[in-house]
């Protein structure tokens, strides 16, 4: 199978000197154009990986596989900047549980990828440490906030990358870069080691070009963690097997204007699903109208609390110059170290949590959240999956030619439902319009990630993962000498 040939090549990349130098050369070349990584250090990664896998002795299917990690997820001895000037020199003293589990399988973290600062944004333009360029069109954004991870995977720099999804931040950049992005069920992957932005909404996710990779990585990472009290044991839900005739709920999108390219892709997707014998069923989701406002109230409120710790006292970039007292030190460090979007969300969050305003905003949003969850639960009683676009437009241009911050927020409407409800969702490449990838997504009930994988696998028959112009499949010297060469087929 094509997939596993690639996998065994990836496993050799770091071990075989010729392959390694050819891969390093390739990464260097591409990085000049894409700038997916904030820190690229395979040597360090090998050290970190060796320490973990030696201890556990568990080596599995991910042995030797290089991967990238979004820079808000801790990997010991690598920096943990969160894309912020305030943490630009911060070196993580520990490793996230999700990453640790991958290390125990033998996977090797080779670098930290760029992101919107603290995960706040949909384009990676809000990074305080530089821009990342979409490998499909360098004039466009890779999406966000896990833009670096998605760009690295799309260009073929690594076979998978970790991201975090608070309101769509794994799925949207995956869609913008023409690859798969899985947002797991809330609580199924430990958040220990994920720098918190909105604790009740976010989860670590996976981005890859191959579904087998997503499955393997998710299987390795998931499961309850005593260090994360919000994590739960993974209780896999039975997928629809056999004929694969998934019943897919298709919501009415009349009230949400879609860019022409997305509309076209949406229609192709519906046609494609029908041709594959999926059963399409119209559903109504009236709470969508209130989704984004409730989402942002909750996200900003939680962010204001979670980011209070970044004060320049114990770690982080301290404001230079004389400061008369610690209070002033904190104010100046935060004001100089944090970017505009982060400040905006902290201000909003602080405001909606102020006494006198809580009822009107925060509590109200939480009640609406209950209604949203109930609506989605009810929908799933009659269907297997929900299909939705990922974003109302395709990958946009940078800066003023692109999408302004307010419009970007409104555009989270399709993705943030999965975060508000804790449901698993996966974005998949649906079509290419005017040379740009457009993605769609499936949502499933809790713990039905396998169903998402099967549905995406089936859809790939009508539209396989596209390759961007800058993508290059791994060139392996001696690809015939795979580790499984003992299994000769004899006709």
């Amino acid at each position: 199978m094509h997939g596993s040939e690639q996998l065994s090549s990836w496993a050799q990349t770091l071990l075989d000197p010729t392959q390694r130098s050819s891969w390093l050369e390739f990464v260097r070349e591409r990085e000049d154009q894409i700038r997916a990584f904030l820190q690229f250090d395979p040597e360090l990664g090998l050290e970190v990986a060796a320490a973990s896998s030696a201890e556990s002795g568990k080596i599995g299917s991910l042995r030797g596989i290089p991967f990238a990690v979004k820079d808000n997820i801790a990997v010991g001895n690598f920096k943990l900047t969160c894309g912020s000037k305030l943490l630009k020199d911060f070196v993580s003293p520990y490793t996230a549980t999700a990453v640790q589990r991958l290390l125990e399988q033998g996977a090797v973290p080779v670098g930290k990828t760029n992101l919107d600062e603290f995960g706040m944004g949909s384009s990676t333009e809000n990074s305080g440490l530089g821009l990342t360029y979409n490998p499909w069109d360098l004039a466009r954004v890779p999406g966000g906030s896990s833009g670096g991870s998605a760009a690295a995977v799309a260009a073929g720099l690594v076979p998978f990358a970790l991201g975090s999804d608070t309101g769509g931040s794994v799925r949207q950049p995956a869609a913008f870069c023409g690859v798969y992005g899985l947002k797991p069920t809330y609580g199924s992957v430990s958040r220990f080691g994920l720098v918190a932005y909105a604790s009740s909404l976010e989860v670590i996710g996976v981005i890859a070009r191959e579904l087998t990779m997503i499955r393997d990585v998710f299987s390795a990472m998931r499961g309850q963690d005593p260090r994360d009290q919000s994590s739960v044991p993974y209780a896999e839900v039975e997928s629809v097997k056999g004929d694969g005739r998934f019943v897919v709920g298709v919501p009415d999108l009349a009230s949400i204007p879609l860019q022409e390219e997305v509309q076209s892709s949406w229609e192709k997707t519906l046609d494609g699903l029908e041709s594959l014998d999926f059963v399409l069923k119209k559903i109504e989701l009236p709470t969508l109208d209130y989704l984004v406002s409730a989402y942002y109230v909750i996200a900003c409120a939680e962010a204001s609390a979670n980011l209070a710790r970044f004060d320049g006292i114990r770690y982080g970039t301290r404001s230079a110059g004389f400061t008369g007292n610690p209070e002033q030190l904190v104010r100046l460090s935060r004001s100089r170290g944090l970017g505009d979007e982060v400040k905006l969300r902290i201000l909003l969050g602080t405001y909606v949590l102020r006494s006198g305003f809580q009822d009107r905003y925060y509590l109200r949003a939480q009640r609406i959240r209950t209604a949203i969850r109930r609506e989605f639960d009810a929908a799933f009683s009659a269907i297997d999956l929900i299909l939705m676009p990922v974003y109302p437009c395709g990958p946009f241009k940078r800066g003023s030619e692109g999408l302004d911050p307010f419009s970007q927020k409104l555009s989270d409407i399709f993705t943030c439902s999965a975060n508000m409800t804790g449901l698993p969702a996966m974005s998949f490449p649906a079509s290419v319009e005017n040379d740009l990838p457009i993605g769609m997504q499936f949502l499933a009930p809790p713990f039905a990630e396998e169903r998402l994988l099967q549905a995406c696998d089936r859809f790939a028959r009508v539209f396989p993962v596209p390759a961007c112009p800058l993508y290059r499949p791994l060139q392996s010297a001696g690809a015939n000498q795979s580790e499984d060469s003992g299994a000769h087929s004899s006709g």
Partner: protein
Amino acid sequence: MEREELDITAQLARLELSEDETRRFEQAVFQMLEYFSKMREFDVKELPPTAQMTQTNRVRRDAAVANDNTEAILDNAPELEDRFIVIPNVL
């Protein structure tokens, strides 16, 4: 939101905004709060608030666990004196 409200909020958030920033944020904050007001249309009577999706309240043993990365943690401190982090005088 009035200017004064924004100032108080900034103070609570431990952010110091320049005059220019205050103007810019005033607009952006106002725009978002306007948008949030849409929630008022929704009938929330009878709806309990959802704080978090997994709804569990697991506890752990109140026992000490050895931590071996103190050095790495202190390495990130802006200014150290022995094993103390130096900050300006509190008083």
